[in-house]
């Protein structure tokens, strides 16, 4: 995949309010930086994150999607993070069917106190996505657009 040096990935991170969101806050507060490409969306529990949210984010051009929930066994609602993990796995296999890299979607687990670890995981995610390059759908959309216009003309 060709990759421009200035490629800065856009990563949507669904973060549980009870753990990862607080961890991200702590990371920021402790001046422990994480890549600006991580765009955080707070959710009351990762159990609220549907497979559809992950797929739609990619369809709409996100380069990667991260779901960040509590440590296994520590979910505020007991099993929300486990459901989220199953959905992430489901979407990863769906992405293969679609023809996108499964690694564009990933789940991480952190507690509210794990600011440093959140920053590390976020950095790893950004590295993975940078290595994968831009979401080809976004690139395609830009390429397909003029073709569309040409097709309209011929119609």
């Amino acid at each position, binding site marked *: 995949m060709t990759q421009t040096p200035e490629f800065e990935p856009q990563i949507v991170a669904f973060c549980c309010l009870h753990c990862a969101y607080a961890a991200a806050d702590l990371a920021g507060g402790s001046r422990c930086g994480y890549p600006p490409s991580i765009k955080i969306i707070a959710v009351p529990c990762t159990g609220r994150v549907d497979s559809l949210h992950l797929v*739609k984010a990619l369809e709409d051009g996100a380069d990667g999607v991260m779901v960040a929930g509590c440590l296994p066994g520590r979910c505020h609602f007991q099993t929300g993070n486990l459901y989220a993990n199953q959905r992430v796995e489901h979407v990863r296999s769906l992405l293969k069917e*679609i023809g996108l890299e499964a690694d564009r979607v990933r789940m991480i687990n952190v507690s509210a106190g794990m600011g440093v670890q959140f920053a590390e995981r976020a950095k790893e995610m950004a590295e993975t996505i940078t290595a994968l390059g831009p979401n080809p759908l976004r690139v*395609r959309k830009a390429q397909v657009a003029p073709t569309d216009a040409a097709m309209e003309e011929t119609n």
Partner: protein
Amino acid sequence: MIVAERKPLEAIVEMLKNDRKVLAVGCGTCVAVCFAGGKKEVEMLASSLRMTTRLKGEKLEVDETSVQRQCEVEYLEALDERVKDYDAIVSLGCGVGVQFLAERFPDKRIIPALDTKFMGGPTEAGVWEERCQGCGSCMLGETGGVCPISRCAKQLMNGPCGGSKHGHCEIDENIPCAWQLIWERMDKLGRIDELMEISSPKDWSTGRDGGPRRVVRDDLRLPEDEDI
């Protein structure tokens, strides 16, 4: 309920290779509750189709909608105008829904997005099992409420066979032996003596062997014009 499962994406894409604009139609009844063809699954399939074709550099426009039941024509009327804009309809209904769509829209190609599996229900979260094969002459009253037609691999009338092992069927150790279940149920009901009588062969003419079937209820039919 009718239990179905989505076809591999590639198979659906292949069926759509000559189409430019399609409408994915979900069904809000059986296939919605088995998570194969409800509103959410339509959105997921439409998204997946748009993404996979865009990645291949092909142009396929996919819109989405859902009806309460594809197998009742009254619910399909709402689509009459809408379908005119599309080359094909991708149905996320069971095989019945697909056919009712095809009958309602004779000039449209209808693509099945699902494989219809069986009549059954969920036995635990994420697991569905077959329970009935529509034999047309239900014998559950004689078998303690356990169906030997759909649940016994050999559809035995007088089981179990010699392949019944520790309560499981010889074809798969995860499948309970239907006749073992029947025996246990009848034992609980104090009706074992009934199982000692040999059942005669089943009359399959009420099932598929009798050809396509039809149910007619004269009390529900609309009066003929001349009677009005």
